[in-house]
C-alpha cells in the first residue's frame, strides 16, 4: 500500500516556537488587556484600581519597549498536535521544540528559569530548556503547535484532589474555592483559572492546563459545564481577594473548565492557577 505522507521539516516547528516565545513574553493578549480595562472601570477600591491601572500601563510599556510583561517569563509548555499523515524531516520533533525554546529565550533577553535537578543541584540550564512537551496525534496532514509560558508564582498555588462521585458539583466548587483562598494575594490575582474534571490523576492535571489555552470569552461547549464556569467565576469574585490581594472586586478574569471521561469510582479535579500574565499562542504548519 502506498500512503501519501506530507513532509514537514521540524525546522519550521523550531522557528514557530522561537518567535512565539518572544511574542507572548512582551505582548499581552488583547482579551486580557480589555479584561483589565473592564475591571478597572468596575473597581471601587482605590488601591485595587491603582493596581489595574499599573497593569494596563505595564502592558503598553512592555509592547512599546520590548520588555517582558513579567520578569518570570515562565517555563515553556508545548503541545504538538500532529496529523497522522505527516512525516517529520530534518531531525527529532522534541529536539526542535527545545531548540526553538532556547533560541526564543536566549535571543530575546527572556529569563532562563529552569534548573536541571529539582531537589539537589538546582543548577540553571541557562537556556530555559527543557520544555514540557505533549504530543497528540490527530487526523490530516498539518501540525498545530500551542505554547504557554507559565510563571511559577501561580503554578506553585495549583492543586489536585481526588474527589469522589458523591462530592458532585458542590464538591468541585468547594475545592476550587479552597484553592483560590490558598492562592490569595501570593499568586498575582486577578487570576485566570483552568479546572480539569475527570480522567485520571495525571491526565486531569494536564486537562486543567489545557483549559488555560482558551480565550477568555470561550466557554465549555457543554451548557452544563459552561454554567459551572459562570458559577465558579461568581464565587471567585465574591471572595474579594481582588487585584494583588487588596480586596477589590475582580479576583478572577475567567475560569475555564475542561471535562473528560473518568472511572466509576472517581472524580479527579485539578485547579491550575494562572496569574494575570496568561501567555499562550498557537501556530499551524501546513
Amino acid at each position, binding site marked *: 500500500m502506498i500512503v501519501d505522507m506530507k513532509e514537514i521539516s521540524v525546522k519550521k516547528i523550531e522557528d514557530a516556537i522561537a518567535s512565539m516565545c518572544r511574542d507572548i513574553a512582551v505582548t499581552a493578549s488583547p482579551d486580557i488587556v480589555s479584561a483589565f480595562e473592564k475591571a478597572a472601570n468596575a473597581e471601587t477600591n482605590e*488601591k485595587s484600581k*491603582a*493596581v489595574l491601572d*499599573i*497593569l494596563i*500601563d*505595564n502592558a503598553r*510599556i*512592555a509592547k512599546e*519597549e*520590548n*520588555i*517582558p*510583561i*513579567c*520578569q*518570570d*517569563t515562565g517555563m515553556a509548555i508545548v503541545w504538538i498536535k500532529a496529523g497522522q499523515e505527516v512525516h517529520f524531516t530534518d531531525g527529532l520533533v522534541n529536539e526542535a521544540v527545545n531548540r526553538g525554546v532556547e533560541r526564543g529565550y536566549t535571543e530575546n*533577553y*527572556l*529569563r*532562563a*528559569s529552569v534548573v536541571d535537578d529539582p531537589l539537589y543541584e*538546582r543548577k*540553571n540550564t*541557562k537556556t530555559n530548556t527543557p520544555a514540557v512537551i505533549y504530543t497528540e496525534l490527530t487526523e490530516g496532514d498539518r501540525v498545530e503547535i500551542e505554547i504557554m509560558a507559565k*510563571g511559577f*508564582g501561580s503554578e*506553585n498555588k495549583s492543586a489536585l484532589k481526588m474527589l469522589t462521585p458523591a462530592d458532585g458539583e458542590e464538591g468541585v466548587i468547594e475545592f476550587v474555592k479552597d484553592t483560590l*483562598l*490558598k*492562592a*490569595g*494575594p*501570593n*499568586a*498575582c490575582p486577578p487570576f485566570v483559572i483552568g479546572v480539569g474534571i475527570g480522567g485520571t490523576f495525571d491526565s486531569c492535571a494536564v486537562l486543567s492546563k489545557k483549559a488555560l489555552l482558551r480565550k477568555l470569552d470561550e466557554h465549555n461547549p457543554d451548557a452544563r459545564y459552561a454554567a459551572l464556569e459562570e458559577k465558579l467565576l461568581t464565587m471567585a469574585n465574591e*471572595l*474579594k*481577594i481582588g487585584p*494583588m*490581594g*487588596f*480586596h477589590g472586586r475582580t479576583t478572577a478574569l475567567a475560569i475555564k473548565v475542561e471535562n473528560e471521561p473518568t472511572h466509576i469510582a472517581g472524580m479527579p479535579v485539578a485547579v491550575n492557577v494562572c*496569574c*494575570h*500574565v496568561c501567555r499562550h499562542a498557537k501556530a499551524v504548519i501546513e
Partner: protein
Amino acid sequence: MRRLNLPLSEEERMSLKAGDAVLLCGEIYTARDAAHKKMHEALARGEELPFNIENAVIYYVGPTPAHGGLAIGSAGPTTSGRMDPYTPELIELGLRGMIGKGRRNEAVKEAVKKYKAVYFVAVGGAGALLSHSIIKREPVAYEELLAEAVTKLTVKDFPCFVGIDCEGNDIYDLDERVPGRD
C-alpha cells in the same frame, strides 16, 4: 504619594502605615530563593554576608536580562513567602526593609515588629513598568546564579505599598474579610 529616601531612619519607618502608597529612592539589593539559601549557609559557616546588611533593603526579584543599554530588564517582585524561612535571621542582623509580593508568615511579622523593619509590596506582573524606576544595577555576589544573583540597584521613585508596618499591621488584613491566609 510619599517619597522615601533610603536608608530610612527608625523614626521614618515607624511613621509608615500598612496600605500607604510610597515611592522608594536610593540603593537596594536583589536576592531571591537561591541567594537566600547561600547567605544562610554562609552565616552557618561563620562567614560574612556578601553586602552590608545594616539598615539594608532587599528586593525579591529575578529580572530578565537587560537589552539596548537599559539598566535592567523586566523586574517585578517575586512571591516573598518563599524567603520567610531565611528572613528573621537577616532582620536580626540588620535588614530593615524587604520588597516583594504576597503574605509573610508570623515569624517574619514578629521580627518586623521587634526590629522596627518594614515590608513593602510591589505590583506583581508589572515588571516592564517597574524597570523604569531602576536606574542602575551593579553585580555584588553569586553571579553564577544568573537572574538570582545578588546585585545592587539604584531606584528612583520605585512605586510600592507598605505591606507590613512596624506595628505588624498587614495590608492584606486591612479589610474585615481576610482571604488568602496560607
